[in-house]
């Protein structure tokens, strides 16, 4: 045990030394600013308002006005279930969500929430988004259709107000 610890310590020291050396030698090439910039400007922003996505939601009834109570419920759900990966105002793990109701159909949004495993395999937009999100798959948070509808209402409210 003690011996292992000693060997480990020596290894750690060597590791520390070698780390110091590397730093001076070269910058890693992966973060070439130009390539990253290129990736960013691809198709997630392409609007496709015919695409309803793949999943349980075939059509959604949407009122002209916002159901404020439903939107509040959706905001709470969004905070607890989604905000670890999505922000409204910036791309985080997944895409920025401001304006999502202008880019996608309500059915698509709900199917993406309820059926992400199939969406990223079959839906053309979701497939592209997956690649743009560095293959970070969207998590299925086990929400009900009603809960997904509430989140949609929150997105609608956000987009109307901003």
């Amino acid at each position, binding site marked *: 045990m003690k011996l292992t610890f000693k060997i480990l310590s020596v290894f750690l020291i060597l590791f520390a030394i070698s780390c110091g050396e590397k730093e001076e030698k070269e910058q890693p090439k992966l973060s070439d600013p130009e390539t990253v910039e290129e990736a960013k400007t691809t198709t997630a922003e392409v609007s496709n308002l015919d695409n309803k996505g793949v999943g349980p939601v075939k059509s959604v009834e949407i009122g002209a006005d916002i159901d404020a109570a439903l939107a509040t419920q959706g905001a709470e759900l969004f905070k607890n279930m989604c905000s670890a990966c999505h922000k409204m105002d910036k791309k985080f793990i997944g895409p920025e969500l401001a304006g999502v109701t202008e880019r996608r159909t309500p059915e698509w949004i709900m199917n993406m929430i309820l059926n992400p495993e199939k969406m990223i395999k079959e839906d053309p937009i979701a497939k592209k988004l997956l690649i743009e999100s560095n*293959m970070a798959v969207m998590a299925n948070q086990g929400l009900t259709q009603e809960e997904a509808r509430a989140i949609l209402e929150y997105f609608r409210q956000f987009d109307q107000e901003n």
Partner: protein
Amino acid sequence: MKQLNSILFLFLLSILMVSCGEDDAKSRDSRSGGAMASNAAERVYVAPGEHDEFYAFLSGGYSGNLTVYGLPSGRMLKEIPVFSQFPTSGYGYSEETKPMLNTSFGFVPWGDAHHPDISQTNGETDGRWVFINENNTPRIARISLETFETEEIIEIPHSAGNHSSSFVTENTEYVVAGTRFSVPYPQEDIAISEMKGNFKGPLTFIAIDDEGRMKIDFQLKMPGFNYDLSHPGRGDSHGWFFFTTYNTEEAHTLQEVNASQNDKDFIAAVNWKKIQEYVANGGGQEIDAQYAHNVYDHETHTATSTMMNKVLTVDPRDVEGAVYFMPTPKSPHGCDVDPSGEYIVGNGKLSTDLTVHSFSKMLKAIENKDFDGDAYGIPILNFESTLAGTVKEGGLGPLHTEFDGEGNAYTTFFISSEVVKWKLGTWEVLDRQPSYYSVGHLMIPGGNSRKPEGKYLISMNKITKDRYLPTGPELEHSAQLYDISGDKMELLLDFPTHGEPHYAAGISADRVKANSRKIYRLDENKHEFAATSEDATKVVRQGNEVHVYMTTVRSHFAPDNIEGIKVGDKVFFHVTNLEQDFDVPHGFAMIGANTSELLIMPGQTKTITWEPKKAGVWPFYCTDFCSALHQEMQGYVRVSGKNSNTPLTWTLDGE
């Protein structure tokens, strides 16, 4: 040996070649020709993606755990930590689960798990819980078959060698815990040589409520024999419990000789319904006792340990008609009751015969006061008057018996290494199959209930030797699966088992799988230190204790950069898994932490502590491959000197 194997192989091969041309019906008839002559492989083959027909819960013996297998495939599905620390999940290491291993002796990190038994309703296995006993530091655990986690452990005071345990009555009224090593009751400092007459072998009856919660109802202060195994009555004998005893000599040294002097020991028949009534009416005496009662809560994801200090003790002589001894030859080991409840089988382990008592004859003998003296005031029934029959020359060293519900019984013989099928009532031996090697327990799903599911039998063998590729001197034990649906038993499969399985319990998968939980709901998480959204993550310093409220989701921690930790701090990482999808656990490991990792199920919160000893920047990471970005799932903790002024900050992506 090798040569023998080759000959055997060639022989089997030739049978196979011959039988290949035959039609199906015919090859079924040639079952006795060995596994290769039949379609054994096909019958244990569970195609990819398909499920087994039965769950089997095998005790992990000295691993302290319970292992879950599928039958007929023999595939191990899970190891459930029960009495031992389990670094794989953090059980017994995490702050939440450490209390599960608390005892009156303090924290005990290991146990010797023995006899799993599934809860019953109306004498049938109902798939709610598995109970299992710990032999060394006497305890009984309850495992949920919804979560497949240990939910409760109760220590058994005044006991030692908790072996004739943890068998369940037919409506799960009680789980029993016996005493194999009789001891002073209560413990006291006396000369070992004063054992005889002074030591006791308490039998503890633990009441189970509708939620499964365990409570010691009473403890029966029995003479200081060794209570080896037990089973409840069922049907007409429901309300009774039967315990084998040995060392009625009350020897305290060189027991392998001195405890084997009497030609007969006893099966103790306990009318627990009478005693239940007696204590309900205020009978018994409350005495001091120290024992831990540990309960795990799936909402707080936290266990609590309560130290109890009283137990109700009952002197069996004070309850008229409550306990009788049935003389049973040759240090009986297994004590098994047939599905009808009429026959009580004593497996005299130093014998070639099995002794079967009749419950109805026992009642008659009691009524007629057909006694042959007494032991410490407890009546001994006349041997002949309770005897139903003897299975003659079954083999050498019978240990345990199970039943198929078709009027047949199956007994393991340790010394002659075989499983023997015999007929209830006529006591004739119908079939025998060798086991490889030295079989101990056997199990038929529901085989010790009113309704056995008599399709398969597994034998759990004590010696493995050459059954698998050699792995050095230490080998896993081996189990064997027999098809018992025909007249003759057929050996279908060998599979290795973990630890030393002492007994197992099996049940149709249909009674369990629909209830198996997939996730823990985040909105039901009531853990004191849970962060159920990234919004709620924070780091709080209280003196030199620092609490990190952390979350995980594919694939990052929040926060993932923490600064302001100092050498000498005690850091609590409370990690909540925000996932709500089936089978997406995250792990958490911290460099240099003197504990295990955490494996956190969706919606769950778990905590480990870390006491950084050196200044520097120290990484932590996710140990469970969670997504394509799993390698990126890591973070850093900056540790500064004891007296530094680095401010406490926590961030994710700079925020």
